[in-house]
């Protein structure tokens, strides 16, 4: 049974880590989570992003959701936004693609060009 006592353990453990961290948000990841996105599978994509960021211990990236981005046929859509506002838009995402975006783009700084809206629209 999950207990609140366990939560206290997590609190103690993470508090130490948080104190060592620099609080700069390096990137913001936004998942389109309107009816179109959800029906197309945005929730597993978002959870895959969270899982992979956790697995790789990435702490300077936030993951959030937004409404309809306006190109429902290309959902699930994930935007990776730099602090200066410039962004990369990934379309037709899957949990597998999300894992690759975390590894290549978010961790190693190489944009996964074949998943971008530009590549998809150019087909």
């Amino acid at each position: 049974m999950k207990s609140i006592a366990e939560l206290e353990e997590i609190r103690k453990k993470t508090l130490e880590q948080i104190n060592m961290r620099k609080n700069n948000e390096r990137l913001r990841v936004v998942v389109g989570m309107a009816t179109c996105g959800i029906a197309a599978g945005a929730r597993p994509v978002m959870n895959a992003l969270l899982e992979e960021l956790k697995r790789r211990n990435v702490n300077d990236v936030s993951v959030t959701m937004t409404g309809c981005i306006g190109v429902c046929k290309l959902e699930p859509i994930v935007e990776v936004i730099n602090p200066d506002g410039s962004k990369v838009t990934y379309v037709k995402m899957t949990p597998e693609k999300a894992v690759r975006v975390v590894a290549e783009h978010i961790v190693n700084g190489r944009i996964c060009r074949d998943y971008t809206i530009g590549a998809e629209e150019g087909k």
Partner: protein
Amino acid sequence: MRDLSLHLLDIIQNSIAAKAGKIITIIYANKLDDELGIIVEDNGHGMDKEFLDKVTDPFVTTRKTRKIGIGLPLLKSSSEMAGGKLDIDSARGKGTILKSTFKIGHIDRLPLGDISDTFVSLIAARPDIEFELKLDNGEKSFLFNSFEIKKKLDGVPITEYEVLSWLKEFIDEGVKTIFGGVLNEVDS
């Protein structure tokens, strides 16, 4: 939508769009009445009567990108095809309360789906909103409140991955305890 947890995620987005600070979800399943219900109550900006009357019309929406919105019409149809219905009550400035029901044993009733995934995604994305979840089977109930957890965490963000993993398991256990043996798709 493939299951009720996805419908729930979708309609809660409406509460978020209505700038709600607190969103209460109640899921109840009563085997005796063969009724499963989802109630979502928010303190967002609400709707006036004119908008409320036509809100399940797919050609009515508040969004600007296009002139259709199918979140509520889809939920309405999922309810109705499983012998239930969708009721919405709202007042401008007060908030909205939505109730969607289903016959548990109806062959077209959608499965519950992954309720914990829905809440973990919502909390990860919007830790500033107070999410409350109550599960009830007529005998026992389970209560979860994201702000209560926040208080316990005392300074550690609720969006920490470790905390989110704990939340997922905590809600999963709640679903199993309350709906195991009540809904066929949930193992007891």
